[in-house]
């Protein structure tokens, strides 16, 4: 290694470390503010002099945060399972069967990627109000039960499953659905994991549609609840930061558990272009 290479490397480390401070600081400031009392919140101390848990006690005691956590968990889990099941089934069908109309169906599904959600929320709202779906779990969930991107992803991975394997299972008398469930799904586990994590994060963080479709606080998801709670407690920054911390922690846990899949998944979405 030349001297200039070493210099570049050292400078890179210094710059990257300095930038990390900028990336991490808002998280630390959020967490530290959540342990401050009303008296201390306006003094710019980095660590609270007398850290307290009162804010957490208050938020779980007298607000709907636990309910919102539960709502978000239920919605994110059910939609993710639905996306995993249907997207891999569609991907499997499009990759492993030949039938008239196959190309058109694939192109039609993919073309929905170009439609922005913002354009659909008004028709979805009207549809939900006609069918009585407003302010319900189903109303929040139904637009996300399948994802065109997931279909694209799963089809690609399903194509790599060897046909011989499927034919062997057919000769053994396995049903077509059984082949999908027991032969192909286990072979595309990494793709399923990526899709699951991204879908879960997306559902957990979704804001516009849940904001529109839910109207009573007990039906809010965590982001909508946090926005509502924060505007109700305007200027009580210690409470807003406590709420923000509570909404962020579940995702930090998911992130630390599945970091490799997340980074790989992002790279995967980028390289499809």
């Amino acid at each position: 290694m030349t001297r200039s290479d070493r210099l570049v490397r050292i400078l890179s480390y210094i710059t990257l470390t300095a930038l990390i401070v900028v990336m991490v600081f808002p998280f630390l400031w959020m967490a530290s503010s959540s342990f401050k009392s009303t008296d201390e919140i306006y003094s710019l101390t980095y660590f609270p002099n007398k850290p307290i848990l009162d804010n957490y006690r208050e938020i779980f005691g007298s607000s709907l945060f636990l309910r919102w956590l539960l709502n978000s968990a239920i919605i994110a889990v059910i939609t993710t399972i639905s996306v995993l099941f249907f997207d891999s089934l569609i991907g499997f069908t499009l990759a492993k069967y030949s039938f008239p109309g196959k190309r058109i169906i694939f192109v039609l599904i993919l073309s929905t990627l170009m439609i922005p959600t913002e354009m659909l929320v008004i028709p979805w709202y009207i549809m939900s109000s006609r069918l009585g779906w407003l302010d319900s779990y189903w109303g929040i969930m139904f637009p996300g039960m399948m994802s065109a991107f997931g279909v694209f992803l799963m089809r690609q991975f399903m194509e790599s499953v060897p046909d011989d394997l499927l034919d062997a299972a057919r000769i053994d008398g396995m049903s077509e659905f059984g082949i999908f469930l027991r032969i192909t799904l286990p072979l595309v586990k990494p793709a399923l994991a990526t899709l699951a994590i991204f879908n879960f994060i997306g559902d957990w963080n979704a804001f516009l549609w849940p904001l529109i479709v839910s109207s009573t606080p007990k039906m809010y998801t965590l982001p909508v609840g946090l926005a509502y709670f924060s505007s109700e407690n305007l200027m009580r920054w210690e409470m807003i930061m406590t709420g923000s911390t509570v909404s962020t922690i579940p995702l930090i846990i998911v992130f630390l558990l599945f970091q490799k899949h997340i980074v790989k998944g992002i790279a995967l979405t980028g390289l499809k272009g």
Partner: protein
Amino acid sequence: MKLRQKKTMTAYLFLLIPLVFFVFVRFVPTIYAFWLSLTDWNIISPKMNFVGLDNFRELFSDTVFLKALGNTFKYVLYGVPLVLALSFVISLLLNAIQKGQAFYRLIYVMPYITPLVAVSWVWRWMYQRPPIGVINGLLSFVGLPTQRFLFSMDQALIAIVVTTVWVNLGYCVVIFLAGLQTIPREYLEASKIDGANRLQVLTKITIPLLNPVIVFLVVTQSILFLRIFTQVYNMTDQGSGGPLNSTKPLVLYIYQKAFLSFEMGAASSATVVLFGIILLITLLQFQLLKRRIQY
């Protein structure tokens, strides 16, 4: 029944529910949005009259809509170059180090998966006036003048851009880094042997080979900034896009039109405008990607 026929039947059976979904939750609503944009429908009134392009004519003479459209382009024009330049530099630096690459990358990605609503309130708290806002506290600590940030007509939009860049940075870094790692080492080594300096390697080899990645990021980030909503809703007073509409983007305009004043027809025509812009950018991407660089 022959095996072939049986397989075709199975395929259609598997696709039955998905087709119902994509038709009724994606296609029909899209067509319905286009239809609504040509009507004067207000959710309270039972009547729906066909008004042709009147909504669009009204939109383009509505100063608030024009302001929102202008703001939306400002978000894109400030945000996209900033996030791309920063993430490109960071990914070059990450590519230059060997130990700890995964750790640094992880930290940069963290904001990307954090709920945007929480991020918005944390930044809103940091942007507060002196003496309670930490950024202003930092500014006065180093002897710089304090700023009004979200309370200023000139700074609020930029303040929101900075927060959004902070969120999207990690995503772009990961994609740039993946792109950098696909460049064969031989190209870089060969150019060094030929006597190219670092800058020449960067501009003549690295950037041209990254062209598809750059185009992809420009397009996806532009669409993201065009659709900006959550940050503005949560960082401005009462989700109004203030002060005085100075931060209001197109989607917030649509939201207010549709769900606060219930003018579904007018709101739908604004969504059609948004759709048109996004479509244009996507088609541009395909055009740009056709011209691939071959070595």
